[in-house]
């Protein structure tokens, strides 16, 4: 994993505030994510995780504060950010009634990939994910595990330096989750930055660093091992419960 060097930040957030009327969803968030890092973004439901991830992806405007993603400013260079990030939500974001190749062609096309590149990617994914038996079927016929891994691969079809994963393993069995994390590790090893939100505390242990949000603020941010030490806890789950209960 990349060490913390200056000028090697994938995400820089300074004093980010997001208000909906009088409700403060994000209250002066400050954090940085290193390039090549797996950054866990945790928090209870309603803590403000989704709001923050939406701002980072350009789906929502911040009320105030500085945000820099992949070296680009969120206010002025939104188009460049969009080209340099991948995004996957727990809803998988593939089209059920298209085949694997058609899905890749569609998303590849949206990111402006050449026809040749799309062909290469399609062959590569089918090979890498072991989907040979499913080349003719629609995505809805794929087993859940395959579908999810394919969704992740499609989310990075344009080879972005940063990938945002919003609860990517929601509703998936433990074995599939483990396989999915292996895939994440492989991509991180290639230098991609992974920004992931999750509810599963065992997954939090897989991250290089995690931040825990409570009521719109980041209450803790560090390596899982250090957090466990600080809060004198056996597992990340205990850390989380201590913090979330306040």
């Amino acid at each position, binding site marked *: 994993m990349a060490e913390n060097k200056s000028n090697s930040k994938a995400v820089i957030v300074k004093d980010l505030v997001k208000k909906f009327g009088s409700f403060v969803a994000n209250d002066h968030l400050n954090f940085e994510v290193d390039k090549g890092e797996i950054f866990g973004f945790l928090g209870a439901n309603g803590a403000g995780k989704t709001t923050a991830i939406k701002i980072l992806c350009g*789906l929502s*405007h911040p009320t105030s504060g500085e945000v820099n993603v992949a070296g680009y400013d969120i206010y002025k260079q939104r188009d460049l950010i969009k080209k340099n990030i991948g995004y996957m939500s727990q809803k998988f*974001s593939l*089209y059920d009634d298209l085949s694997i190749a058609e899905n890749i062609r*569609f998303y590849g*096309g*949206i990111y402006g990939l050449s026809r040749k590149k799309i062909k290469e990617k399609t062959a590569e994914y089918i090979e890498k994910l072991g989907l040979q038996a499913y080349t003719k079927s629609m995505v809805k016929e794929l087993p859940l595990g395959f579908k999810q891994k394919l969704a992740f691969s499609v989310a990075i079809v344009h080879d972005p330096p940063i990938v945002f994963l919003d609860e990517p393993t929601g509703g998936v069995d433990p074995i599939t989750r483990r396989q999915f994390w292996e895939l994440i590790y492989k991509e991180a090893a290639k230098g991609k930055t992974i920004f992931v939100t999750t509810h599963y505390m065992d997954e939090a242990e897989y991250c290089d660093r995690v931040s825990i949000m409570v009521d719109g603020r980041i209450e803790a941010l560090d390596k899982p091992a250090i957090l466990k030490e600080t809060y004198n806890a056996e597992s990340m789950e205990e850390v989380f419960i201590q913090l979330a209960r306040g």
Partner: protein
Amino acid sequence: MKNFIIKEFLQIFRDKRSLIILFGIPIIQVLLFGFALKNEIRDVPIAILDNSKDLYSQQLITKILSSEYFILEENVQSEKAIENAFRKGKIKQLIVIENNFTENLERENRAKIQLILDASDPNTAGMINSYTSAIISNFEREINPSFAGVPMIIPETQMRYNPKLDSVFMFVPGVITIVLMLVSAMMTSISIAREKELGTMEVLLVSPIKPIQIILGKVFPYVILSFISALIILGLAFTVFEMPIVGNIPLLLAESLLFIIMALSLGIFISTAANSQQVAMLLSMFALLLPSILLSGFIFPLKNMPDIIQYIGYAMPPKWFVIIIKNIMIKGNGIGSVWKETLIILGFTVFFIGLSIKKFKIRLE
């Protein structure tokens, strides 16, 4: 965007339900309305009270009864029996011919006929009335081509554009309107809502593709398919029902295209309010389909409705489109006579697109 359109077509053609809505419903509707739901009249039971029993009165009665619209249920003998004839509930109309009918016509150029109608169903009554009046005025012209002192009001307007009185001519414009509304607005709103429901919309919004490209990419296939649908309906009307298309066909098609775009922008607007396919479907059904059937004046004449409902009818885009296509198709009028309605539909289009953009921006904030 090319990719988007290809993908959209693939999805439409793989979804049997979409195909049925797109092509099955138009065909079924045209055939249904054309054959089964004709509201033209045929073999209506009537009664006659002939006080004259002379040459012209007999000729007129023969003419009415040979028209195949009416059959004689009863010969009423006196004024007193009229009430009784209606009480039996069978006859829809009673024709009273005054005394000395022939003499009055020849000497004074003036004769009276009374048409008494069962108006419990006002639409049918209105139709029977105009059919009968038309036959009578025909008769007048036959017996005296230069006849001036006409006792009856001649409902020329009812007959002129539809000489055979085939109601399918009236239905085709309505069916086109409803189908275009249904296909365009409902299908787009459902298909956009589906992307939201499945979460793919979020992914698209994160991608470098612009929202306007997303919308255009989604809408374009439906413009084409709706247009094909309209052509199918016109083709059926032309071949199966031998409906003449009097007016300028390019103008008719251009107006259809404008209406399709209006319906699509309405569909986009609905989808900004609906987050799931069911909601989009229900909104389309209740906000579009029912009002456009009931209030466009296509089945039920608006003028029979209370004022307030008539005003609501003015706010229904289909009403204006029905006027446009009736004018072009049946009367053969040009753009000169429908420019006002065209502008109104254009106005609706701009209005819905504006609203959608505004709503979309609010969502991003």
